[in-house]
């Protein structure tokens, strides 16, 4: 029974199975499996091991790190700074993801109602933002928000907010945080919007047609037709964005290195700072392990979504 089901899923598969050389598939996937084992699984395990050892500068050079049991985890979990970082990471993720999803949905709906030419124009703009390399954009945002000659300060002063004359955004914790949010949202909305727009296109026009004939208004159509059709992909994009924003490192490091002070230190940045500046690789590894555990919770939801979408597995 399973064989028949399998054959229905991939037409060529059953015939292939009968041919000799059953080793072929395994040879074909061997490099992938080896790569994953050495470059993904091994680092994960190594990270776990280091987090249970005493691993500082000396152990890095000489080797032979002694096991320390749960000492690193105890040290981390007793540290109020760590809990502050965890809280900040959740806050960071929530703010970014909510903004990204709301804006992306609005943009996707807007795209759907635009004429062909305008839509193409807006889409090209979105693709341009999407394609811009992270570090290039990061540099540009530093220029846009530069205290002297920055175009944002100029605009704010022109709009009547005199206090922004030569305002230095990067000297203050919360304004640096705001800039990072703006940067990440600007970079992430295009992907989410374009994907959601593609999903909207798959909603059959007849559904809208018949809903309209039944006398449904725009709001009702959105709730009863668009939303249910959009839900699976919406969940997928949501999960991806949560994962991406949660792990975000490059933007934060390039703009503020987690500062000023601790103001923009999220978990990945914190792990890096602990490991690199204090040479406490053990503590950094413990933080990384905790980060992975937090992410796994999200990942499980995401993978279930993914599998539901991939009905033909």
């Amino acid at each position: 029974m399973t064989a028949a089901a399998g054959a229905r899923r991939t037409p060529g598969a059953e015939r292939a199975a009968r041919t000799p050389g059953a080793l072929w598939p395994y040879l074909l996937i061997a490099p992938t499996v080896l790569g994953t084992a050495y470059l993904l699984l091994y680092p994960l395990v190594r990270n776990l091991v280091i987090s249970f050892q005493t691993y500082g500068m000396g152990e890095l050079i000489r080797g032979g790190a002694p096991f320390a049991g749960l000492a690193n985890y105890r040290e981390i979990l007793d540290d109020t700074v760590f809990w502050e970082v965890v809280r900040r990471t959740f806050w960071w993720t929530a703010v970014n993801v909510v903004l990204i999803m709301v804006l992306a949905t609005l943009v996707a709906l807007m795209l759907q109602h635009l004429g062909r030419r305008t839509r193409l124009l807006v889409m090209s703009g979105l693709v341009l933002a999407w394609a811009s390399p992270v570090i290039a954009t990061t540099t540009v945002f530093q220029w846009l928000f530069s205290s002297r000659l920055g175009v944002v300060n100029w605009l704010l002063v022109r709009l009547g907010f005199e206090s922004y004359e030569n305002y230095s955004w990067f000297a203050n914790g919360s304004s640096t945080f705001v800039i990072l949010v703006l940067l990440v949202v600007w970079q992430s909305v295009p992907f989410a919007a374009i994907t959601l727009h593609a999903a909207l296109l798959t909603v059959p026009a007849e559904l809208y047609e018949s809903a309209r004939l039944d006398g449904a208004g725009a709001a009702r159509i959105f709730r009863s037709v668009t939303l249910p059709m959009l839900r699976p992909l919406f969940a997928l994009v949501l999960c991806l964005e949560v994962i991406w924003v949660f792990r975000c490192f490059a933007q934060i490091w390039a703009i503020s290195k987690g500062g000023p002070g601790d103001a923009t230190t999220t978990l990945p940045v914190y792990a890096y700072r602990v490991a690199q500046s204090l040479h406490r690789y053990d503590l950094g590894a413990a933080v990384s392990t905790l980060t992975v555990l937090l992410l796994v919770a999200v990942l499980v939801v995401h993978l279930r979504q993914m599998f539901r979408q991939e009905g033909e597995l």
Partner: protein
Amino acid sequence: MNRTSASPVTHARIRRLPLHAAALLVFVLSVFPVYWMVLTAFKPTQDIQSQTPLFLPTSVTLDHFTKAVQADGFWLFWRNSLAVTASCVLLALIVALGAAFAVARLRWKGRRGFILMVFIAQVAPWEALLIPMYVIARDTDMLDKLSMLTLIYFMITLPFTIVTLRGFLTAIPVELEEAAQVDGCTRAAAFRRITLPLLAPGLLATSLFGFITAWNEFAFANMLIIKNQDDRTLPVWLSSFSNVFGTDWGATMAASTLFALPVLVLFLVLQGRVASGMTSGAVKG
């Protein structure tokens, strides 16, 4: 548009005004930072320093580009980035093609498990693996080596490449290959002559994605290349622009433009294919 044709034309125009205003706003917001980058790169320094920003080009200069290109090591880092990116993309394509073929065309024990592994690898928390990677690189004498970066980038891009190629492969009817086999081709020849050419857009789209990921990667390059500064890649160099150019925004923007250029060109040229590749990879395999 169906809807508006039902109501009177002028009424529709007015109703669509907020819509078009929103469209304009979205367009301006998404384009402006890129536009400002390019504009600043071409502006003479005195225009950059004018108290009221100039939003349109009045006079154009290439001074900033000259300065960026002549900065210490620019070409070296550019070459490093290109070498790492190209080799990781090539490696990922070859390895992924084999795996995607096995998944899409063959049936074997453990196939489900393998797909699950690829999906999990696709969302691997790379940023949390900086420390073990550093330790491993140090233990195996791979610190400060571009080959280590290449291997890591290969692994970062591989899962997506497999998933996307598999999507493209399933879309190509297996009957085409079988027909060629009936006509006397071997299975390998049938794949090479029939399927591979049809797969070209898929290969293009996936390698483009790999290119962008590797070209942009910052965290590992920043962590693993420390002592040997000659082996740095462009993103790390650019992130420390203030050490290089100080507050010379013209030169900084010129360097950013040169860094972004390859990606933007590739992306805009292949826009349609990429979008379809993205959705076929991410959504319905």
